[in-house]
């Protein structure tokens, strides 16, 4: 971890002091695009998790630590769709992290928890109470506040070709 910190320091020093002025040079130069990507990340995660939870609830057996159980689970169509969506989620989230700070991406994608709760209520019949509205409000407020901060602490290096 200490090595990482030192390396990060070096990278920051080596980074160019200013971003290119034109908006078309890189996808991350636009904050709107960053929000759109964050929205895609949220959708892939929520729908992926829903498919996964749906499939797992209808498997009818406990997994435990047996690897064969997991292989059988992956063969379930709903679980497989969930896994495919979560792979897309992983890749788009990595792209988001290449555009924006970790401490920016995490709270902004936190809106996904609201979506997960709503989907859980609609499709999995999980219990919901009025407190959910307060929680939802707090998550949106937090994400909005973080959204007003600059999404990159340091300008990123040029894209390697």
């Amino acid at each position: 971890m200490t090595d990482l910190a030192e390396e990060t320091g070096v990278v920051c020093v080596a980074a160019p002091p200013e971003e290119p002025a034109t908006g078309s040079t890189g996808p991350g130069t636009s904050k709107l695009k960053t929000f759109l990507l964050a929205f895609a990340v949220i959708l892939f995660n929520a729908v992926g998790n829903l498919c996964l939870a749906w499939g797992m609830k209808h498997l009818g057996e406990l997994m435990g630590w047996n690897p064969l159980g997991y292989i059988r689970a992956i063969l379930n169509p709903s679980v497989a769709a969930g896994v495919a969506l979560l792979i897309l989620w992983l890749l788009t989230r990595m792209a988001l992290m290449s555009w924006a700070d970790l401490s920016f991406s995490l709270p902004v994608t936190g809106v996904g928890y609201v979506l997960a709760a709503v989907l859980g209520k609609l499709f999995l019949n999980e219990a919901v109470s009025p407190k959910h509205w307060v929680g939802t409000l707090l998550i949106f407020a937090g994400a909005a506040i973080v959204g007003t901060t600059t999404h990159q602490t340091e300008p990123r290096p040029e894209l390697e070709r």
Partner: protein
Amino acid sequence: MKWALLAIIVVSTVLADFLQSYEMKRSGEQSVGARGLVRLLRLTLSRRYLIFAIACMALSFFAFMALIQIAPLSFAVPASAVSLVFETLLAKFVLNEAVGKRRTAGALLVLSGVVLLAR
């Protein structure tokens, strides 16, 4: 069992996100078209920290699958969100991100919202 699985999820998530953010910062801004996603896959396979991060995510994923079988999703999701706290701290002190008052306040609001969604 519930708490052991939760601990595995939180530790592996924090490690995965931290390493991913560290590597993706160095890699430059990636595109998200079809070619961009293939490029991201190749990038993942060529960086050992990213491979390790994916391994951590897989561990977190399987622990999560096991957890949602013995606990409701409305417990599993918010409980694993405490990783947000550790990750924000790592972002500030190790990744040297500008975590000011607004980001701290926003992250705490999101966290308390997630906890409220739990019940």
